[in-house]
């Protein structure tokens, strides 16, 4: 009887341990999947980028995309977003320093839109998450409004999927 109890106890410890390991592995997968990235901390980057749209974390685009975007602010997705030279350089340097690695899978260095990055379309479009209906339901005019679904987008948190 006593022996049996000990066995039960041991198997309990093992299953708790296994669950814990699974949890860690799960968290690791999320991080590796890029669902939590560093938020923009530079006050100038926050102010200037955030004047017209959410402050997209630097890790959402590769360096080449940020460079091309910052070199073409006169036509920023159809709008003029020109800045003086010093501010442009400061923002470009910050974004490039925190950019996504171009060696990673599903990164398209030539695409300027986050929503045209292969990792993004894989996560959203194939699952119908940014269908016209889904966007309307979330109160977003376009799929560029991450915050409509990912409340913590500007803090680099993209885990709250709907």
């Amino acid at each position, binding site marked *: 009887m006593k022996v049996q109890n000990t066995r039960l106890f041991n198997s309990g410890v093992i299953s708790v341990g296994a669950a814990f390991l699974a949890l860690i592995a799960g968290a690791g997968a999320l991080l590796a999947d890029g669902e939590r990235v560093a938020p923009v901390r530079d006050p100038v980057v926050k102010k200037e980028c955030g*004047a*017209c*749209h959410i402050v997209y974390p630097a890790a959402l685009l590769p360096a080449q995309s940020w460079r091309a975007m910052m070199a073409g602010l*006169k036509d920023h997705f159809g709008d*003029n977003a*020109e800045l003086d030279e010093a501010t442009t350089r400061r923002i470009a340097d910050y974004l490039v320093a925190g950019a996504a690695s171009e060696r990673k899978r599903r990164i398209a260095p030539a695409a300027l839109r986050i929503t045209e990055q292969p990792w993004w379309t894989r996560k959203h479009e194939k699952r119908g998450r940014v269908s016209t209906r889904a966007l309307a339901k979330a109160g977003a*005019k*376009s799929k*560029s409004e991450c915050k409509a679904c990912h409340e913590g987008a500007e803090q680099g948190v993209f885990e709250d999927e709907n």
Partner: protein
Amino acid sequence: MNIKLAFASFAAIVVVAGGARALDAAQTSLAQRYYAAAPGDAARGKTFFFAERVNAKGETKSCATCHTTNLKGPGKSAAGKEIGPMAASVAPKRFTDPAEVEKWFKRNCDDVLSRACTAQEKSDVLAFLLSI
């Protein structure tokens, strides 16, 4: 135009617009810089602000496209971000930084009119927004 004359026309505009409210010192000095080049007219600025135009891309736009017709309330950028109110009476920090004002004139005139605004147009818009 000398500064005294510019300031006199500025004061006259405020009185005409019925704005007894005192402007922030930085707003006054910024306005003076613009009015030195071309005295601002609030009524003309109002017409300019709400005039719809077709830009070079074929889009019909006015300043109110983003800033809305209630300038004491928030506007919304094309990307869906809230823009603070434009009326000086509710936005005391607006129109205090010359670089900031020029940055937005440059961008927004290009977006709405597909050209730079003239000194006269800028003064008029400024006079209008400072009067409400």
